[in-house]
């Protein structure tokens, strides 16, 4: 339980006190706002856009994982340096040959409907749900051939080959465990539990008013000691970024994550004593902004042109103009947030328009009468306004070296059809997640065998390198961490030599909370965390 900020030692009325605190500014007029909320331990957070379902086993869209992660849990959880910590599994052991992983399951865990959680649920979830219906389960769990259940609290994953990346994909929002007794023998895709999950997590599904809000209540039988600390979690759907900022200002919202407000307002929240802004919580996701070239384009097929484009980008200026400082520049395809794999020892390309001009001259592109050498199209999906600003910024940078950039902004289905369905683009810019392991998140962009026309977010560049393929394939099954790191160092060097993809930056998506909220970024998954420890202070 949490207490209201009112203390009996003050001779101040509650209303006056609230009025004095910024969070209560708007709420003080009428009995609306956070006053009642804190008394009953109800916290309002928001999620954007509205999720299409409540269960992340069938739909891994970002808002679905946020909501699902409160009710459904995975075998593992992760700490900030992205090493596994216990969740539904209390212990685990990878066999020396890397061909099996033994999980010891937590005892005394109950599903929200009162049934016990056992190894049979793990077996069913992995083999029948995640491997069959999860959007990326078929690839992440590809090497899992069977799950053995010698007893109710032991599950052994049998692997056809070592899968070092697998251990990074077992969080509750990525690979949730589902109750076998609810799903078995039903049409799993239309099972009512997909919209009203039965899980083991700290919060239990209560209602979902579409277009408005989702209400989750505390799970009284949760295994976590003293958790959850809140009585209720209300997840509001507020579609407009400026409206979200206003709702935070007015105290109608206590918590919002995944970069919820326009980036040009973030500084104001950072400076305000009424709010806390946390830049952590994306270490599990590591969404990267990278420019994917189309090597089928005759100009882009030339390495000098791609090098010239790298030299033409003034990325230092981009950091402040495009990102308002909320990003880290990339030196290569792996961000510094993954220290186990990152290396700075790669070919680098400083901002140097002269060098870019030399490279383009050398490649045989003379400037025309209008000062332009050739033109390229840049297509980006309409997700936030960052990519619009980025497009305009790049257009100026590229014009300086005689490359005319035509900007195309498309909604997501149009973007996917153009880039991945028809390869009808020259340059494209979109967020791609590394996740916590490059084999899961990055291999797909550089591996020639990942290319598959019509499949979104895989190698669309047409890049084919036998050496690259070999490095990535070896890394995906290398059980020794040191040897695996060496392979990824070679990957980063080769990626920055061949440049099929021009890495730009890792945007930082902030989480904003009212001053009296604690544990809102408890781990590397940010607002995807189960939030058992989320609470009001005081």
């Amino acid at each position, binding site marked *: 339980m949490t207490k209201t900020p009112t203390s009996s030692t003050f001779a101040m009325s509650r209303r006056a006190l609230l009025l004095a605190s910024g969070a209560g500014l708007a709420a003080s007029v009428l009995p609306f706002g956070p006053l009642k909320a804190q008394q009953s331990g109800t916290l309002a957070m928001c999620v954007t856009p509205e999720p299409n379902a409540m269960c992340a086993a069938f739909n891994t869209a970002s808002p679905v994982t946020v909501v699902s992660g409160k009710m459904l849990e995975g075998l593992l959880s992760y700490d900030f340096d992205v090493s596994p910590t216990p969740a539904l599994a209390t212990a685990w052991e990878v066999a020396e040959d890397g061909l099996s992983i033994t999980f010891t399951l937590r005892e005394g865990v109950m599903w929200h409907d009162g049934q016990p959680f056992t190894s049979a649920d793990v077996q069913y979830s992995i083999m029948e749900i995640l491997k069959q219906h999860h*959007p990326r389960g078929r690839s992440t769990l590809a090497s899992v051939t069977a799950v053995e259940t010698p007893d109710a609290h032991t599950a052994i994953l049998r692997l056809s080959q070592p899968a070092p990346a697998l251990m990074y994909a077992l969080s509750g929002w990525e690979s949730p465990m589902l109750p076998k007794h609810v799903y078995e023998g039903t049409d799993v895709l239309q099972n009512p539990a997909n919209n009203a999950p039965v899980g083991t997590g700290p919060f239990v599904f209560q209602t979902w008013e579409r277009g408005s809000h989702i209400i989750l209540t505390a799970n009284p039988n949760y295994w976590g000691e003293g958790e959850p600390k809140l009585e209720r979690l209300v997840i509001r759907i507020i579609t407009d970024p400026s409206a979200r900022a206003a709702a935070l*200002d007015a105290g109608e919202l206590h918590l919002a994550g995944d970069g919820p407000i326009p980036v040009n307002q973030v500084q104001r929240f950072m400076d305000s004593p009424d709010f806390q802004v946390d830049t952590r919580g994306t270490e599990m996701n590591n969404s990267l902004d990278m420019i994917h070239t189309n090597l089928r384009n005759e100009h882009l097929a030339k390495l000098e042109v791609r090098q010239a484009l790298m030299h033409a980008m003034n990325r230092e200026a981009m950091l402040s103009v495009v990102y308002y400082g909320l990003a880290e520049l990339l030196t290569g395809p792996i961000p510094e947030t993954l220290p186990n794999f990152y290396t700075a020892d790669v070919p680098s390309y400083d901002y140097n328009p002269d060098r870019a001009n030399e490279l383009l001259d050398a490649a045989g592109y003379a400037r025309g009468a209008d000062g332009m050498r050739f033109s390229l199209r840049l297509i980006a999906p309409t997700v936030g306004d960052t990519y619009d600003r980025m497009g305009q910024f790049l257009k100026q940078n590229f014009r300086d070296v005689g490359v005319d950039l035509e900007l195309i902004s498309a909604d997501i289905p149009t973007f996917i059809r153009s880039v991945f369905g028809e390869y009808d683009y020259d340059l494209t810019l979109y967020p791609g997640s590394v996740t916590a392991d490059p084999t899961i998140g990055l291999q797909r962009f550089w591996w020639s065998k990942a290319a598959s026309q019509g499949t979104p977010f895989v190698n669309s560049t047409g890049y084919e390198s036998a050496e690259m393929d070999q490095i990535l394939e070896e890394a995906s099954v290398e059980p020794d961490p040191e040897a695996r790191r060496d392979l990824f160092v070679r990957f980063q060097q080769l990626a920055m030599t061949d440049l099929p993809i021009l890495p730009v930056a890792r945007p930082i998506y902030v989480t904003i909370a009212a001053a009296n909220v604690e544990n809102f970024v408890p781990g590397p998954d940010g607002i995807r965390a189960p939030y058992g420890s989320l609470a009001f202070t005081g």
Partner: protein
Amino acid sequence: MKPIRRRFPWAFLAKRVAYGALAMLVIAIINFFLLKLAPGDAAEALAGQAGTADPVYIAQLRAQFGLDQPLLSQLWAFVVRLATLDLGYSYVFNERVSVLIFSRMPATLMLMGAAIVIAVIGGIVFGVTAARYANRWPDRVISFVALLLYGTPPYWIGLMMILIFAVTLGWTPTSGMENVLAFNTGWDRVVDIAHHLILPALAQSIFYLAIYIRLVRAGMLEVLSLDFIRVARAKGISERRLSYRHALRNAVLPLVTVVGTNVGNFLGGAVLTETVFSWPGVGRLMFDAMFQRDLNLLLSILVLSSFFVIVANLVVDLLYAIINPTVELK
């Protein structure tokens, strides 16, 4: 003058209902092909949201959605579903289409109704006032403000109203339809919803308010110059009664026509208002359905919207006969 008594216009109604049904069918078919022109499909949209997807997953989705069927059989399946009033299941939203739409419909109707009432009443009051004080200062102020409102994007007005009335002054909530943290019931809930309704209804009505003011003012000026008004004035009837009772009744017909045709626009405008104010209505559902290429859901909403527009226009035609008994319904 005694009202002219006449029989209920059954033949007129039957004809209009038949035309309406045909119009809806044509609208459905045209929309089907229009929406099919949008690049990408629901499977790609879902895969796009998921961040990754393998070819098998996409093929599974297409089969679920019926997107692997030939275009004409998709159209036929849709028309059959419409005819049998079974709108089907949305695999994108994981819910029956009828449940999705009808659970969101009351919010939109409430917003639309409130906005129309504000626009019509405001339009009449300010329009009549402007006409009574034609070319004097009240008219100048009203006409200037109306022009300003007419030229300002409703989206921007909405955001400014949130900043001023909700954030700075704290008079109203910023967004949403009710205070979801208060768990109000009964009368408290009604008051709470009304409180939340103020800003979005105002924001949505403002553009139309501007039009209606100008429309009523122009109509009133025309009627006020007619002979029967001079006669009435000579009889000593008060100016207020003259304006509202004698002139307005004649000047209001164009307004009724325009309101009738605007019902569709109000539904369209709901998309923006509902987005700015996070109002859980059909407008946003329509927007989401478009961006996720859930064509069956989107088409169902469009057909229902066309139904509303057709009904609204029918009601307007019937209203004509009541307001002005000399109008004949054919």
